[in-house]
């Protein structure tokens, strides 16, 4: 795929080394606008490292990351968030002792303008902005179905709702591209199905958001993805529609080993 206007994010030959370990090995990757892209791969394949480079937590050893035609390689996380990438974390990282609505309002930080001085005076502008932020936070909580729990401390929410709150907080940053790191980990099949529906229907079709997610649950991946990319040992081994990837020999090998591939060939499945 070439660098067209339709590509929201273009990563070229991105590489990350931790000492001698090559966690991500020259991966090139594009995210077209308005699609749901899944990034899969066995444990330790470098998926989360790749995410962390996109969001500025790690600086790539080499390569470049372009967001909306602007080079964001090695920019700090808050700058990247301000430019339109919102994210959730693999192991939930909410502000545990803040209420749900406060969590969401922290997400709006870059979209608000109040500073130290006018906050002390509490100018009409600050009052308006604060009220608007509060209203919008409630709307976002409504979107993920947590409106009734707005004033509950994040740590008191059940696991599935914490995941939802993380999504609401990420949406509060008003992202162009939403990165979800294993969003259905720990959810039961029913919750996963609902979440798949939420991503595909609500985020992509209604909000016209672009979503890039790391996911292990193949039902979720196959159910919602427009494209699937597969990482193994830090390299991209396959890319394509869910159906193509499902049949790809290298992918099967990566997940199940060489023997499985030969087994399948023998049975004429592949």
């Amino acid at each position, binding site marked *: 795929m070439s660098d067209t206007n339709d590509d929201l994010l273009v990563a070229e030959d991105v590489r990350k080394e931790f000492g001698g370990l090559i966690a991500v090995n020259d991966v090139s990757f594009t995210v077209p606008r308005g699609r749901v892209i899944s990034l899969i791969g066995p444990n330790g394949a470098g998926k989360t490292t790749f995410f*962390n480079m996109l*969001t*500025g*937590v*790690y*600086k790539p050893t080499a390569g470049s990351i372009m967001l909306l035609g602007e080079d964001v390689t*090695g*920019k*700090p*996380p*808050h*700058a990247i*968030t*301000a430019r339109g990438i919102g*994210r959730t*974390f693999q192991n939930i*990282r*909410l*502000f*545990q*002792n*803040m209420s749900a609505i*406060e969590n969401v*309002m*922290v*997400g709006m*930080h*870059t979209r*608000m303008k*109040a*500073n*130290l001085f006018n*906050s*002390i005076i*509490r100018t009409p502008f*600050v009052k308006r*902005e*604060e009220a608007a*932020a509060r209203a919008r936070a409630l709307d976002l909580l409504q979107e993920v179905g947590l409106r009734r729990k707005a004033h509950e*401390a994040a*740590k008191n929410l059940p696991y599935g709702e914490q995941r939802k709150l993380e999504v609401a*907080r*990420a949406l*509060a*940053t008003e992202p162009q591209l939403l990165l979800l790191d294993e969003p259905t980990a720990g959810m039961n099949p029913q919750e996963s199905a609902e979440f798949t529906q939420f991503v595909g229907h609500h985020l992509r079709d209604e909000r016209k958001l672009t979503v890039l997610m790391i996911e292990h649950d193949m039902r979720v991946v196959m159910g919602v993805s427009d494209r699937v990319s597969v990482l193994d040992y830090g390299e991209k081994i396959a890319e394509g529609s869910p159906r193509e990837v499902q049949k790809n020999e290298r992918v099967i090998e990566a997940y199940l080993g060489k023997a499985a591939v030969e087994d399948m060939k023998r049975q004429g499945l592949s």
Partner: protein
Amino acid sequence: MLAWNTLGRPGWQSLRGRWRGLRAEARWGIAIGLEVALAALLFFVDHALGYAVLTLSAFYWIRRLPPMPWKLAAQAALVLVFLVFQPRSLGALLAIAFAVFWIPERLRVWALPVVAVVAAVFYPFYQTEMFTIPVFGVWPDVATGVVMIVFVMMAVGLNIVVGYAGLLDLGYVAFYATGAYTAAFFASQQFAGQRCPTPGVSIENCTVAAVPKHNFDLGAVGLVPGAGGIHVSGWLLLLLAGVITALFGIVIGLPTLRLRGDYLAIVTLGFGEILPQIARNGDNFFGTGVNLTNGPNGITPLDSIGFGNKLSGWTGGVLPSNFLTCCKANHLGHQFQSTDLFFWVAIVLLLITVFCSLRLQYSRLGRAWIAIREDETAAAAMGIPLMRTKTWAYASGAFFGGIAGAYYAIFKSATFPGDFFFNISVFILCMVILGGMGNIWGVIVGAAFLAYLDREGLANTGAWINSNVHVGHWHPNLEVPLYASGIYGLIILVVMLFRPEGLIPSRRRAAELHEGVHDEPLYDSTHAGTEA
């Protein structure tokens, strides 16, 4: 939290079990009996102490009673009895303190601060009329009150850094010193210099008495005629000290705030040590021969604060022209002292500090600070610029520390490098921890109490112990203030063991301290980023 029952020995356990097994009425009876016995015992040591224990237990037990129609009346009657028969006693004060809890919470939130401020403002009028507190002796005098308020201001400032943003700062004394020296530089004869009054003659060849070379006056009051040096109006000076200290905080913050946790604490500790050393050796600033700080002798005297002759004249003397030389009038049966004026101005400064601190807490910036404290990585991922936000916390904390330092210097009319040692940093941190990190009301109470102990409380307590505790004719001869550090350490130890969230905790902080914050670093610290 470490509960007693995990420490318990079998004997203790069985005692607890038996206690639990008793009927409620029996338990109450035993408890009340023990309290009366304790009160009787204390009565022999100090009458007032015995009464105080009785009052406390009486109110406590009335509160414990099930709701009954005459319950409120009984409490009210008890308060009335005190107010009529013993209006000036600890008992009456405790009675009033308990009465506060009858006020509905919604009202109390507003009533309590208002009553506290009014009580503080009128303190100079009734301080001499107050009763003697058992153990602690007489009520602190007004000068002690000024020092207490200065320390409360510093604690509230440090609370922004440590309590809100979670940045452990062990060098807060550096800000105090910056403020104090700013006041000293701009309101004393430090930079007067000398020249010969005879035109064209250098100071070395001068035959008559030298006169000041530099003289800059900007609204200062109480100047000696012919005194040189820089003299800026005290009011302006407070603002100036705040701003300069805040800038200094930013300068210190930019390199150090990239660090996390323990590393940050150690570097701030370093800065807290460097600054007093510069002050101490600043009479020959880095060997240049410039006398910047007058070395160990310090800078004294400083100009006082006041409203100047013009304003004083217009208002018919209501606003004193100079705090130090004021106060001939006799208002409300009270001979005004200049300390009283300093006390009231300190209250105003504290109110401004508290106001700003509260406003900041519930703002976009305050939320960002708490987010950083809870999880730095997540905060950065939500678009909070870590460096800039932390630096703002540092600058705000420094601003109030600087004003407090400047005010204290003006009040004392002196600044000495010996005032700014590491123990002050720890002392202020103790105030924040004791009161309850992150909760401004707790911090105020904790700071006022510790500052009082330091100035008067410990000495009074020592005197009380020496005269009231004795075995036969043998009296101890304790110098309690000598053990100050140990006593503060013990207080902090006890607080940390049994109430780690402080006396009046913030709801959030309490939760964190009991369950821990899960903030494992995931972040390249070299890459924290200052860029927007």
